[in-house]
């Protein structure tokens, strides 16, 4: 079995912990010196980097949240001057501004190496033809996988998102062997093939690397059956690196976190207490080698469990289970992070919308759909149809530009929504496989 970086991926735990400590201390020194936000947080708690003398001391440090990145929009969290940054990506924020992440030349190299590890772990080699169906753009998914695949010498087809007919044609003609994208898109492809009478068994496809959204074991089985491939999971988030934080080996029993670059903890999302190894809790990650954007104790909001038992593949890196939920209200729709608060903010800005709304999420033909049902006041509701349609279109447009994903808007009569005492039940998620 192939391991991309045998020396580092199979390190003895004792060696790993020494390396982690060194890198943690160096990261803290850099972050404290160069990032005002961290210096302020540390000062408030009366902590200096020198206080961290062991990995266990990590729990004394403050958390970093997505909000910190938003409050320091766009470049406030960078630990290097902008002239050292060779790439900027971003992801959606909880409200208003997106979060911006940057990479130095070395960060991009590290990123490629880490993705090369997860691709190799999934069984991809230089003989593979890798078709990338993530969208190229501000999101990190496509570029990360692209660099990793080039690193191992595979042939990369940078298809980008959508255009399913063409994806299938290229898959047939170019003899794609590895598919990269969201798991739901894999099923869309399967469905389209079935409709067009293409037997997936006639394809050369043999492995899929899926990520960007949570997916279940049932969904994995369905993808594997319908496309006749091995489907592996990988994990990442743009604030930490993008893809390349963790990835499954062919045993598919949890994703190996690349611990020489990221230090994982699990915490109780309510109290912030660190949980003993093996407990279910929120994953918190500290970067150990990132130059442009080091993050210290970043709250991923993903609920998971860390498995420290050695894996059959020989890698000594800890494994994380598939995230089983979120500790906040973030929704992942077509691989895009959406917060109900973003939608609320848009609706509040529109004259005529009432502050009563409901989000209905479903998966129709393996494609996520988002419907925003909103109460409008009578002036709009009783107006002529044409104006009403224009109003809906206007709201849909505003939503799409904020969310980066399309939503259907449905207007409902004033006072027709169920009223809740206490916390409103605003989200109805009908997707079965998530």
């Amino acid at each position, binding site marked *: 079995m192939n391991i991309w970086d045998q020396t580092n991926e199979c390190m*003895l735990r*004792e*060696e790993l912990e*020494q*390396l982690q*400590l*060194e*890198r943690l*201390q*160096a990261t803290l*020194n*850099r972050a404290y*010196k160069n990032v005002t936000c961290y210096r302020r947080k540390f000062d408030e708690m009366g902590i200096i*980097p*020198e206080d*961290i*003398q*062991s990995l266990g001391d990590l729990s004394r440090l403050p958390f970093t949240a997505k909000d910190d990145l938003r409050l320091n929009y766009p470049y406030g969290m960078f630990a*290097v001057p902008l*002239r*050292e940054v060779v790439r900027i990506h971003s992801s959606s924020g909880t409200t208003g501004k997106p979060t911006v992440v940057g990479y*130095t*030349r*070395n960060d991009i*190299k590290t990123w490629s190496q880490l993705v090369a590890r997860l691709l190799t772990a999934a069984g991809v080699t230089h003989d593979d033809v890798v078709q990338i169906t993530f969208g190229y753009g501000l999101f990190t998914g496509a570029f990360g996988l692209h660099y990793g695949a080039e690193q191992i010498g595979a042939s990369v087809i940078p298809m980008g998102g959508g255009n399913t007919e063409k994806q299938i044609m290229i898959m047939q003609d170019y003899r794609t062997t590895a598919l990269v994208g969201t798991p739901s898109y894999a099923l869309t492809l399967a469905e389209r093939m079935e409709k067009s009478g293409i037997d997936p068994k006639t394809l050369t496809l043999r492995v899929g690397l899926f990520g960007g959204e949570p997916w279940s074991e049932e969904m994995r089985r369905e993808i594997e059956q319908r496309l006749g491939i091995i489907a592996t999971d990988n994990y990442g988030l743009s604030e930490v690196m993008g893809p390349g934080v963790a990835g499954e080996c062919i045993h598919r029993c949890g994703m190996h976190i690349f611990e020489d670059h990221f230090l994982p903890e699990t915490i109780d999302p309510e109290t912030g207490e660190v949980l003993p190894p093996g407990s279910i809790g929120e994953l918190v990650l500290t970067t150990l*080698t990132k*130059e442009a954007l080091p993050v210290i104790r970043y709250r991923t909001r993903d609920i998971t469990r860390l498995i420290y038992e050695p894996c059959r593949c020989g890698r000594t890196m800890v494994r994380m289970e598939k995230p089983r939920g979120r500790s906040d209200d973030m929704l992942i729709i077509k691989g895009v992070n959406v917060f109900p608060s973003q939608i609320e903010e848009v609706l509040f800005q529109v004259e005529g919308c009432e502050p009563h709304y409901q989000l209905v999420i479903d998966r129709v033909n393996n494609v996520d759909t988002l419907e925003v049902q909103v109460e409008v006041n009578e002036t709009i509701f009783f107006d002529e149809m044409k104006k009403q349609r224009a109003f809906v279109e206007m709201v849909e447009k505003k939503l799409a530009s904020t969310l980066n994903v399309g939503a259907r808007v449905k207007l409902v009569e004033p006072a027709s929504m169920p009223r809740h005492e206490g916390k409103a039940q605003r989200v109805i998620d009908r997707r079965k496989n998530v």
Partner: protein
Amino acid sequence: MEMLKVRHINTYYGQVHALKNVSLHLKQGEIATLIGANGAGKTTILNSLSAVTPVRSGEILFEGTAIHALSPEKIVDMGISQVPEGRQVFKPLTVEDNLELGAYLRYRRREGRTKIRSSLDEIYQLFPRLLERRRQLAGTLSGGEQQMLAIGRALMARPKLLLLDEPSMGLAPLVVQEIFAVIAELVREHGTTVLLVEQNAKAALKLADRGYVLETGKVILEESAAELLENREVQRAYLGKDKKEIWER
């Protein structure tokens, strides 16, 4: 397994906190380099390891044994030799006497002349120029030859770990090349492990496997030497590439 493991050491010169929570490691047969500006703590790290300036807190493990409370001679005995900054050869003594003094502990252990003699021959093989000048007083040697002598003297103790402090200081580029070639040979042929402090950061990073960047007594980066050579912050601060070059490239 790491040969040397240093965890959060703190070293002081009187009230001056010279090393702040420094952690680092070395694997057997590896060359690591410490780079940083003057006063960043590079030499202090070497002096802390050799107990010339003992640490005030933290731990140093050498092949699994804690050595941070041991005396300098005990540390040499365990297999760590330091080549001090500015060579510090015994100028009124001959080259060969200088070398033999490097084996002082081995004489005391009664290892026997033949063994020590064969070490001496090895040193002369590494540095043929020292053989030519074996009867000459060390003070009459050129800077480069004195540096070879200082390295040779340290090697006479048969160290597993060699601490090298600014071996290129004040030497002509050709001589530096010669000395660095010998360091590479030591590692390749004898499996010696080397911790190298250099102001010539570029040459050091080309020779080393890994590097630590120090700033005001703290480690701010740990990376492979190749990555550090590419790091623009390092390029600007320590590799002498000026702003203009970086801006206009």
